[in-house]
């Protein structure tokens, strides 16, 4: 029990003292996960809009596939990206294994289906409302898609947040393709796993707190943004 309270005390001092190692890990975590979410949004939003707007044979099958891919196990994604990026793999020449870029790629693959599937649902509902008006105005498909993305921007922010939550919290993919190398590819989740196994609970706990605070504050920010959007009838 004393170990525990000691760990809490140490964790607090690490956070409040702006520990350099801790800061480095947090910054890298944010850089990797935010980049992955940004890339996933760039792919996922248009993909979601496209499947919400177009009706073509197999559309339902694609929707089911996108929903199924939301549950991709991170370790499997990590393994596949590892195989692709390893020396013998098709992308081995890029020398990306054990770099932050490899981690960004793995998390992008993990998050894109989440963003695509959730944004499709959001935009499909909106499309149902706008469809007749847009057809009356003869709006071309591309403009319909951009209009849906823009008009559902506040809901899509929540979608991106769901993707961010997945990315920042996962450990399986980044530990395989990043390797948890100190000062290079160590992020919060991999550090927590390592420090816990080493018995260094203070650092693990400090990182855990930061992870929680981060999740809470991002959620609070998006919630208040959504609330004000709703008040203005933009959501």
């Amino acid at each position, binding site marked *: 029990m004393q170990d525990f309270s000691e760990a809490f005390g140490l964790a607090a001092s690490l956070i409040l003292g702006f520990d350099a190692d801790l800061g480095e890990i947090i910054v890298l975590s944010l850089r990797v996960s935010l980049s992955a979410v940004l890339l996933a949004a760039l792919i996922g939003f248009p993909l979601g809009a496209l499947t919400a707007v177009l009706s073509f044979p197999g559309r339902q099958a694609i929707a089911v596939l996108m929903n199924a891919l939301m549950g991709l196990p991170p370790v499997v994604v990590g393994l596949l990206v590892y195989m692709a990026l390893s020396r013998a793999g098709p992308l081995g020449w890029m020398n990306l294994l054990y770099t932050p870029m490899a981690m960004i790629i793995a998390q992008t693959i993990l998050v894109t289906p989440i963003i695509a599937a959730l944004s499709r649902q959001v935009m499909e509902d909106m499309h149902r*409302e*706008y469809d*007749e*008006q847009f*057809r*009356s*105005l*003869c709006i071309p498909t591309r*403009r319909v898609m951009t*209009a849906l993305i*823009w*008009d*559902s921007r506040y809901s899509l922010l929540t979608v991106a947040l769901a993707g961010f939550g997945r990315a920042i919290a996962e450990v399986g993919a980044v530990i395989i393709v990043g390797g948890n190398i100190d000062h290079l590819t160590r992020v919060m989740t991999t550090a927590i796993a390592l420090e816990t196994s080493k018995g260094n609970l203070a650092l693990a706990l400090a990182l855990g707190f930061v992870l929680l605070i981060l999740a809470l504050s991002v959620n609070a920010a998006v919630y208040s943004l959504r609330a004000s959007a709703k008040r*203005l*009838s*933009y*959501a």
Partner: protein
Amino acid sequence: MPSAKTTSLLPLEVSSLSYRVDQETLLDNIDLSVDSPGISVIMGANGAGKSLLLRIVHGLLEAHSGAIYWHGVAMAETLRRRQALVFQKPVLMRRSVAANIDFVLRPMGGQYRQRRDELLHQAGLQHKRNQPARLLSGGEQQKLALARALATEPEVLLLDEPCASIDSASTLQIENLLHDTRQRGVKIILVTHDIGQARRLADDVIFMHRGRILEHRPAASFFDSPSSPEGQAYLDGRIVV
């Protein structure tokens, strides 16, 4: 401001048009010819098929049988571009009042901001240009929907009960806008079951009952002496089934 013009989309010819849903015939072998400018009002009780007919002539729904020709050309998207439809329940985008008009005007290029301000001024909404469109009152929303429809500079303006459940001040403003639009040579086809409004606006009346057109006559003659018992009952305010 577009100059006065006479639409080249007329006449509208509808022949043997039928529309069914689950074996129920909602429009039954309709023949219609609209060739006069001005305001044609489609009247009839709820469920007569007025809104359905409007959507079909605009090409939003496909009839099961029959044909629609605008100036001898079968209905197609190129013709829909020259028309605009205002829905009973306005569909406004989650943007500001001005942005709702800009959405239509911007692709047309040119000095669209000036044109947008003109349209908002006509609709009496200039002072609300930066407000979220979906926070406007029902009447204001409908005026914005009408202004947006006019932004497309349609040759034919179709309206589906635009004044149902809105305040009388807004109704008056909308009717004035429709008068001005008519003066500019735009053909207007208006669905309403407000007899007062039909009297104020109609040049000719198309009276529908249970999916069929029973009368299509100049407004004065319809209101003076409807030839069908259903038309007479409707004007008398009796329930027509």
